[in-house]
């Protein structure tokens, strides 16, 4: 374990406008140092804008961004410690991979050339080729190589592995986890492949239309979603008063996804009335939570709890 477990990130009331478009809308957010945090959101939810702000590629329209406690904008101390890799690669397109590695190694004191060479082998990348000539998958692999070998105290990987085939993605997850264990740091992983990455995450941030929908540790979030299946009437009685995320009916059988942990008494009651309780994968929970039909008419979590006079 090193002395620096990584940079934390704090956003306070951050708004980012592009003309009439509000990409981020008063975002308050905390990313804990030393965690692998999943940044989840649908397309256009503000994930990429958030990455650009943290990496000081731009300044917010209003609000405050802090990286390791400081404003990252033109900050000579934090800049070498923040590495953002986007799907586009963020590499020098017309220079050989070998020269790219030289460039990034020069820019980052933490860059590990030997580890970069290992990753190049793992992903079968030719140091003599140029990024502009690579396939989408190989381009992604090279972005990942730069991102991981930089060993930056704050590494933001924004949809970097979308172009990879399944075996390469698993090789990436393994390399990420092994290197994170050997060199703890803050890694923000943004991906649409939630099912594949959920176990890697310690914390989860969900963005929706420029706002933070939730920040929570991944394990307790996963435990929050429960699917209740059984005879329609019994299911309806059981879920009454709970936050219902989704309902499916087939004949007289209903399956309702609810949010909110169940007590032992709830579980016993469900069993006694012949209901099946099942897990809700993080991905399904995410789909329910960001469903546009829920957005405006969505009932707040405790809307149906009784208020004593």
């Amino acid at each position, binding site marked *: 374990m090193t002395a620096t477990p990584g940079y934390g990130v704090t956003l306070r009331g951050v708004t980012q406008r592009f003309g009439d478009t509000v990409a981020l809308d008063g975002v308050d957010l905390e990313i804990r140092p030393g*965690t*692998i945090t999943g940044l989840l959101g649908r397309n256009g939810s503000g994930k990429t804008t958030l990455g650009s702000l943290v990496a000081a590629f731009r300044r917010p329209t209003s609000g405050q961004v802090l990286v390791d406690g400081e404003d990252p904008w033109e900050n000579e101390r934090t800049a070498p410690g923040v590495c953002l890799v986007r799907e586009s690669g963020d590499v020098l397109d017309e220079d050989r991979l070998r020269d790219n590695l030289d460039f990034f190694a020069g820019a980052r004191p933490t860059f590990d050339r030997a580890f970069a060479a290992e990753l190049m082998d793992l992903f079968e990348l030719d140091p003599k080729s140029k990024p502009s000539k690579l396939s989408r998958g190989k381009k992604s692999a090279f972005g990942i190589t730069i991102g991981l070998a930089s060993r930056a105290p704050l590494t933001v990987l924004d949809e970097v592995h979308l172009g990879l085939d399944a075996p390469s993605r*698993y090789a990436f*997850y*393994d390399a990420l*986890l*092994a290197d*994170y*264990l050997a060199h703890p740091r803050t890694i923000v992983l943004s991906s649409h492949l939630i099912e594949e990455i959920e*176990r*890697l*995450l*310690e914390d989860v941030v969900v963005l929706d239309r420029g706002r933070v929908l939730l920040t929570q540790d*991944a*394990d*307790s979030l*996963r*435990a929050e979603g*429960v699917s209740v299946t059984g005879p329609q009437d019994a299911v309806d009685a059981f879920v009454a008063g709970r936050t219902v995320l989704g309902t499916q009916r087939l004949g007289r059988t209903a399956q309702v996804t609810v949010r909110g942990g169940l007590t032992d008494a709830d579980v016993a009651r469900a*069993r006694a009335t012949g209901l099946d*309780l*099942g*897990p809700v994968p993080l991905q399904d929970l995410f789909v329910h939570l960001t469903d546009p039909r829920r957005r405006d008419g969505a009932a707040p979590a405790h809307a149906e709890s009784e208020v004593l006079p």
Partner: protein
Amino acid sequence: MFDGRDPVYLQIADQIRQDVLSGALAAEEQVMSTTQYATTFRINPATAAKAFNQLVDEGVLYKRRGVGMFVAPGARERLVAESRESFFTDTVDPVAEAAHVLNIPVEDVVARLRARAAHLAATTDTTTTDTEAAR
């Protein structure tokens, strides 16, 4: 693996408890490290660490500084005692409920249990008989 309704760390803790119960992990035996667990099952190390900490709190595992985690002496006996308490509510009652729904006579269930128990008694060696002795 690890896709039940409980958080992953509870499932990991449960699996280790089962291994201690079955004798797959003996007293004073070293368990996999957080790092090994994380890389083997491709899970966040904090998740694995949470499971180990819970088992240390329960006295199932203990920590040897700089060496690793070990199965606590007497852990199996304690787990056996606890599991016996919940055996009827957690294991037998659902069987009775399922048998009721399927119209299976209780006598058939009992006959099956007897046959299975006889089979287990014939094939189990002496290493597990300390459970019997504890009765």
